[in-house]
């Protein structure tokens, strides 16, 4: 599959050169790439799920390494891995149980079926399978303490050796890949549609004559505000300009184009204005498992000011922005320094710089970070495509999307 390899390399290059920016665009590109990886991957007869997982992981590692700051890549890769595991599990259970659509949605039902109709099946397999999918841990699955064997469900032959199963095998192989691609398509759809999902909730959060402060340029925020506007709410938006990238200008332009009352303020006026603001709405770059937010630079300042004035600080995040990692020193480790030329014109300063000649270290340093970290205690609410959530609940939401085996790639 040379063509896949080349597209992967191309994408890696783009990530490395930061040609693709914005978590949504990156997520979509990633998931499309992974889909082609999966579809062109030739699966062996045995262990096909793990083979797929290995292939996706290999690609995923390259992508993550290309731009470790763009957490959406890792999120999507984990998500795809999770999909493969889940599809495989449902196929396994279906095959073992002979049930076509025992879509592993409910443990109790699972257990019921097993207990009544198919006593021959190994309870251990089902239990292990159930655990591996990160189902809500029920007391039963916990108590059925079979020795841990993560591989059990995937090597489907090892679990049971009934005649019917081997007969079905060939159909399963084809079915797995097909199902996975179906699900990945769903994921693509989900990522593309997360704006609408989030925007639908706008009307519940924005009231008449509200004053909203936002910063950075986020399509999610734009759609969110416009959705409220379309529902005939009239409100006013303050946009902090977000120097030195001035994405606030971009957002303001689009808001004005859609007919919203927009006021552009300098970043330094955030504290001055926050006392007259009813709500701060920002789009996240990534949401960490502890409920912390990585957003455009300057967000932490706004969050602190909002906290001081008891203004709700609302973060909009599509599901692809949920990152299952717990941050350590995120201001530094999950940040990226951009070019100092955005802040200073070095031509103007050339006369007072000696450019390190002679002296050991240069006199002037310029810091231009891209992101800012907001600790969870400053966030009032997350609005994701599945609804509103507390920062303290994010870990649970994340557990729904990713399987525990993939957290460390």
């Amino acid at each position: 599959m040379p063509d896949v390899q080349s597209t992967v390399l191309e994408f890696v290059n783009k990530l490395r050169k930061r040609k693709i920016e914005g978590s949504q665009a990156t997520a979509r590109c990633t998931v499309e790439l992974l889909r082609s990886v999966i579809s062109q991957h030739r699966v062996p007869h045995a262990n096909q799920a793990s083979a797929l997982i290995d292939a996706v992981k290999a690609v995923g590692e390259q992508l993550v390494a290309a731009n470790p700051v763009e957490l959406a890549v890792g999120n999507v890769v984990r998500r795809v891995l999770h999909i493969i595991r889940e599809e495989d599990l449902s196929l396994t259970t279906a095959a073992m149980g002979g049930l076509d659509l025992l879509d592993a949605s409910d443990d109790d039902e699972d257990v019921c079926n097993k207990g009544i109709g198919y006593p021959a099946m190994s309870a251990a397999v089902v239990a292990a399978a159930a655990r591996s999918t990160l189902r809500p841990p029920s007391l039963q699955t916990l108590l059925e303490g079979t020795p841990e064997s993560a591989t059990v469900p995937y090597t489907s032959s090892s679990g049971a050796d009934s005649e019917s199963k081997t007969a079905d095998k060939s159909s399963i192989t084809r079915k797995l890949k097909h199902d996975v691609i179906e699900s990945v398509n769903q994921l693509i759809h989900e990522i593309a549609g997360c704006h609408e999902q989030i925007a639908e909730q706008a009307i519940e959060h924005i009231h008449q004559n509200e004053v909203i402060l936002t910063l950075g340029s986020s399509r999610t925020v734009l759609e969110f505000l416009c959705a409220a506007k379309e529902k005939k709410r009239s409100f006013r938006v303050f946009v902090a300009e977000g120097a030195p990238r001035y994405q606030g200008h971009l957002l303001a332009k689009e808001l004005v184009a859609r007919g919203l009352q927009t006021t552009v303020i300098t970043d330094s006026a955030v504290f001055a204005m926050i006392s007259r603001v009813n709500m701060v709405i920002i789009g996240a770059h990534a949401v960490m498992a502890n409920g912390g937010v990585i957003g455009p630079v300057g967000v932490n300042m706004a969050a602190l000011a909002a906290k001081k004035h008891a203004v709700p600080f609302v973060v909009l995040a599509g599901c692809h922005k949920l990152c299952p990692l717990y941050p350590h020193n995120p201001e530094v480790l999950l940040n990226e320094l951009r070019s100092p030329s955005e802040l200073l014109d070095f031509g103007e300063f050339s006369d007072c710089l000696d450019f390190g000649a002679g002296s050991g270290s240069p006199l002037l340093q310029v810091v231009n970070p891209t992101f800012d970290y907001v600790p969870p205690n400053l966030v009032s609410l997350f609005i994701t495509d599945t609804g509103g959530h507390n920062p303290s609940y994010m870990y649970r939401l994340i557990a729904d999307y990713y399987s525990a085996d993939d957290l460390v790639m």
Partner: protein
Amino acid sequence: MESRRNPRAVVDPKVRQVGFFTSSQPDSTQQPDPIASESHPVSSISPSGNSLSPVMIPPPRHTSSDTFPIRAAAASAVSPSSFSYSSRRDFPDGSTTASPGRVSRGSFAKSSVPAASSLPGVGMDSMAAAKSSSVPASGLTTVSVVNMPAGLSEKATGMEVQSDQKKNSKPLKEKTTKAERRALQEAQRAAKAAAKVEGGKAPPVTSGSVASTNVKANKPAKPASQKNDGVAAAGGASEKKGGPSEKDRKKDAPHPRMQYDDESRVVKAKRRAVVKQTEAKNRVELFRHLPQYEHGTQLPDLETKFFQLDPMHPAVYKVGLQYLSGDISGGNARCIAMLQAFQEVVKDYSTPPEKTLNRDMTAKISSYVSFLIECRPLSISMGNAIRFLKNRIAKLPITLSESEAKTALQSDIERFINEKIITADNVIVKHAVTKIRDGDVLLTYGSPSAVEMVLLHAHELKKKFRVLVVDSRPKLEGQLLLRRLIKRGINCTYTHINAISYIMHEVTKVFLGASSVLSNGTVYSRVGTACVAMVANAFRVPVLVCCEAYKFHERVQLDSICSNELGDPNAISKVHGREDINYLDGLTNNANLQFLNLMYDATPSDYISMIITDYGMVPPTSVPVIVREYQKEHLLV
């Protein structure tokens, strides 16, 4: 002068001490100089430096012989024409010969009013740099000047002689000959040309939002409560002032400021205004109560008015234009420029027949002040300085002859500049430097003059520290500070205010400047200061505010909305030096889009660890104490 001051020295010998203090100063009769009110580590810079407790408010008197050298030094500092509005060479000698006395002195020859020019040793390298370098430079240079006062006292006497001469030539002013008038016009034209050049050079960043606040509120445009500060009445200068003291007391509370959403008042104010301005089309709803004008509309208009403004003194006019164009910015620089202009006014003043000096001059000053307000709203520090000046005028004994009164006033102004601004800055530097240790990482925001002096002084003391300069759009004043610090070889890091949480980890102390400190401890300062203080507070970094005590005000304020100043909105949509940022180019007239360029914000006192002022280092809760004591002193000086 002597005769006026001596009795007072006897009247009020007590030393007020605030807070805890280490050494008490028993010999209060020795008249401790305010400039010497420093804490222990400070080696005094004034000739009569007796070191006092860390926080103390000394009585505000001196024998004039004591302070005269200093005054003289500053007078020489202020001496003419390193950069002048209309440079002398510009106008032909022929015209001046017609009326040497009138033209050359009266209007321009000695008109080096702007602070930028008046201070020796300021690098005149570029206008942009000069704009804000002026004040710090003044502070620093005066240290050295003060140290050798002997040689300079001559100049001061020379100055006196001059003003005496002028008194003689004063009567000429009344009946100017045709030739004189022509000469004057000539000079004014030259001045105008110079102004134009200046205006072109300086980016019109400062707000020209004109007219404002307190002054317009009461009819003949008297800033706030100036005129009625109780004790002034005791001077018996004018019958109006001599009114019942209860009334004065009541009026001590700050006068309600002009509210621009009050239509009838706005209309009235407009009728009075010298400067006609177009109102901005896209006004921000929240700030209807503040003046919002189109920028850049006033300057040409004012320039054409130059000839019609007969009552306006050229020095005042020039300072007004400089405010408008943004050539002078920064609290101290603006205040010094204004006071020096008023000094010129006093120098050229002659009492009209059948009027008393006190009343007429107060009215004159008031009209000048209202003009300055139209150019740019007064800062609180300027309000305080004006209040001081009016007080001095009101309290002039009627027995004084005109020339004596004028000399007294001029020296009063001189003294205010020296003691309240320049010496105060030196004292602040001495205090603040003790807080800088080796290895410190200091953060500062914008380009506060006092902090700059602190940093430079600490560097001179060979302390090893690093400075983080945080800046913000649209003024980017931090770049000017950065440039000056780097030139001195200080290790700097530069960033924008958005990145403040990123860099706050490494900071050990935050030094901020202030436009004013209000009596509830709120620090009213360059917009963004509150953000910096808040983040510093969140990261448990101490915040030190350097502010001269003359900027303290008894007003209180809770937010940054009720009273503020609006800058040029177009400065926000245009990003200087970044052509790629042009998203908002065609949208400036869109009804849905507004730009808000706030100039100041109010930092709550809980973010402030310490305020370093010329009376020592105090917590924000002590501000009302200083305001109270200071105001008393103010009236007694």
